[in-house]
């Protein structure tokens, strides 16, 4: 029997595991979380009793279906929760559970590693009370907590409005929603949004209407200037409005985020080729339409391959499983596969339209003041990074990292890497794909030195 491993138990990983288990193939599912479900359909901790409707709103049915599938599946597969995949090479996945390291040899691996927040530093962003949008949502979903008593959500992308609405619905006070995307971009993208996924596009519009009817100021085309603090906590926020006026708002917490970025480290460590995606200005693993990576035996699915959301993740998870089946010489239901491809193409059109409606505001890279920290792990400022890029001649991102330490800390550039590239590019007057990307280095996340190999334990 072939060894198949799936990394990540979100929508993509669960659908992939389900598809393979239906063919009675042995599957090992490795997940960092305590309970399957991933992030967008994150399950509340045991003992919490909120309803699906209150947790997932319009997506409650999908969340329930996915969780039910997973609960039925769990006993039939080798499911390993609380397990970090810290390295991958030569058809071996290296995992750690607690302090025990294990080697998992595989013939096929589906990387369904999901995404994290994409951030842009602004003066004051490291003040306690500033959270990423994703973290603000997790606080609500997992712990039923709001990040503050008067929250401003700032950034861009659909998650900005979704999280703001979830906060309003949960009874939290939202002081404002500030979007860096100009209104004109949204108007231009609207026809494509409506034709590719009319239902979802209308739900998105409804979110904005809900916020407005709750009396919450929603602004577009803003430029973030600073998050004010009293030396300890967030006290307010300053921004420039689309008409150029400097505005100030009082708040005690900020949810910050500009779309998501795929977690590509495992694909990178495995040697998969990545290519620059002009639309998102991100480096994405190259795949064929079924999710095959450039390295034989490796497959990608879900937001870890490209940010297209939960529905697309379920589809790509099934497609990657079909690809594994086909490559292992099993039959694949061609009509189902073709239907999934059709759906995937429609969702891809929606992804491109969303990127047009809510562009990643790379132009802010030039606005970040020299004193503002870019790499918070290593406490490196934008000025220090610019010094490396100019005076020290590091016009390439890994070189700038070597000289400045940006991206050398605990997060290994997962949070600062994309904006650091924009800063180096803007400083050197080069296109952002011309400055490269941070090369992945193990471990994927910090690995305790207390870790012992299983055979030695």
């Amino acid at each position, binding site marked *: 029997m072939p060894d198949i491993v799936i990394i990540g138990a979100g929508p993509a990983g669960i659908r992939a595991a389900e598809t393979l288990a239906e063919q009675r193939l042995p599957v090992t599912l490795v997940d960092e979380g305590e309970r399957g479900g991933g992030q967008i359909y994150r399950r509340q901790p045991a003992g919490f009793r909120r309803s699906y409707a209150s947790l997932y709103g319009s997506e409650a049915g999908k969340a329930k279906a996915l969780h039910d599938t997973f609960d039925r599946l769990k006993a039939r597969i080798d499911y390993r929760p609380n397990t970090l995949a810290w*390295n991958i*090479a030569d058809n071996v996945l*290296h995992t750690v559970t607690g302090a025990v*390291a294990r*080697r998992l040899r595989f013939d096929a691996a589906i990387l369904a590693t999901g995404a994290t927040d994409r951030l842009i530093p602004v003066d004051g962003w490291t003040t306690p009370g500033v959270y990423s949008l994703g973290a603000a949502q997790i606080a609500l979903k997992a712990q039923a907590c709001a990040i503050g008593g008067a929250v401003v959500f700032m950034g861009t992308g659909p998650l900005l409005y979704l999280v703001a609405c979830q906060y309003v619905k949960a009874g939290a006070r939202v002081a404002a929603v500030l979007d860096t995307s100009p209104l004109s971009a949204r108007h231009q993208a609207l026809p494509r949004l409506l034709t590719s996924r009319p239902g979802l596009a209308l739900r998105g519009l409804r979110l904005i209407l809900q916020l407005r009817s709750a009396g919450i100021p929603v602004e577009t085309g803003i430029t973030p200037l600073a998050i004010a603090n009293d030396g300890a906590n967030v006290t307010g926020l300053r921004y420039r409005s689309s008409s150029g006026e400097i505005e100030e708002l009082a708040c005690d917490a900020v949810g910050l985020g500009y779309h998501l970025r795929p977690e590509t480290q495992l694909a990178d460590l495995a040697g998969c080729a990545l290519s620059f995606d002009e639309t998102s200005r991100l480096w994405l693993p190259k795949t064929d339409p079924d999710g095959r990576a450039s390295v034989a035996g490796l497959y990608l699915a879900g937001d870890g391959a490209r940010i297209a959301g939960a529905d697309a993740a379920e589809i790509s998870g099934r497609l990657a499983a079909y690809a594994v089946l086909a490559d292992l010489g099993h039959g694949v239901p061609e009509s189902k596969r073709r239907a999934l491809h059709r759906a995937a193409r429609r969702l891809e059109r929606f992804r491109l339209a969303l990127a047009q409606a809510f562009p990643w505001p790379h132009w802010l890279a030039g606005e970040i003041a020299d004193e503002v920290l870019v790499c918070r792990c*290593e406490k490196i400022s934008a000025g220090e990074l610019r010094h490396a890029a100019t005076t*020290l*001649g590091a016009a*390439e991102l890994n*070189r700038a990292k*070597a*000289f400045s330490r940006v991206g*050398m*800390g*605990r997060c*290994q550039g997962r949070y600062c890497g994309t904006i650091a590239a924009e800063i180096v590019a803007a400083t050197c007057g080069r296109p952002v794909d011309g400055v490269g990307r941070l090369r992945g*280095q*193990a*471990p994927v996340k*910090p*690995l*305790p*030195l*207390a*870790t*012992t*190999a299983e055979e*030695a334990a």
Partner: protein
Amino acid sequence: MSEKADVLIIGGGLMGAASAFFLRQRGLSVLLVEHDRIGQQASGVNFGNVRRHGRPAEQMELSNRAHEIWTKLPALVGEDCEFLRTGHLRVGYHEADEEALADYASSVRDFGLGLEILGRKALNERFSQVSEKVKVASFSPYCAHANPRITAPAFGRAAARLGAKIFEQTICESFGRAGADFEIHTRDGRRFQAATLLLTCGAWTGAMAAQFGETVPLAVRGPQMGVTEPMPYALKPVIGVFTEKLEQMIYLRQIKRGNVVFGGGGRGPASTATRRASVDPTITLNQFRQLRELVPALGRLRLIRVWSGVESYLPDDRPVMGESAAVPGLFYAFGFCGHGFQLGPGVGATMAELIATGRTSIPIAPYTIGRFGSGQGTERSSSRRLH
């Protein structure tokens, strides 16, 4: 386009960059051609040990020359390269190690290392973080460590300020002759020529030397490096284990920011073709075990990054340094067997002296490329300037 100078250096690692710097100090014009970026391979990825302790007596004059230069970096190249004189502690897990450590100390007693042999009591008093399992240690107070990522580039920039012409991302495609001069042709069609050619390309030098009829048994491997998250700065000396067992042979240093850098316990695969080297996860996990044995408090930290790079090794654990045994005007400095970082500035000064004056007081005869018995090259040396 054609460039001409007194000396053409191929390879911008620490050896090449420091040679360029000291050649300019001596007034010779210099072209330095680097395949990628200055200091990106072995010079940039090593552990950062600025250590004389443990080197054989035959290497001590070269090492001492480097030692002098390291303390003067701010005046010479404009920055200290995070040079930190913390001392180096070589520890043994067996009481019987004391004799070997003492024998070593007496073998180098004329070179000013100031070694002290420490027993359990002294270790408790002075280096209490070190495990009780360590029975004896040799402490070298003047040894130090520095940041390899920034050192070779600092020498490169300083050389450029003195007038060396540095060509990064310039790929040497073939060697030829232009009259009496060496001439190289680059992939993008440029030509560089000089009467003197210095090859300092680390692991890549083997293939080049072969083109001049000199073959060396160069092995290509990668160091296995790692770094932890930061903890308060407390572990001052660089620590290395004195042992015959490869898996126990690890070393570590804490930098002022708090991170602990470590390596050892074996080497990994590396390739001159892909220009990449990898870290073997099995070695990383063994390093964890060894680090916990050596400094138990480290067991509470987490690893945040591993790395490697392309290094070259020779069977007698000695580098190649000096003039070609086959071709007049051709010089080498490569194959530093994983311990070239401390030597680097001294190698640069010595190669510059040798090229500029035809001689050096540093005893480098053991490092001649001729020791591999391949001096029967296509071009025979008519005049030997080495003595």
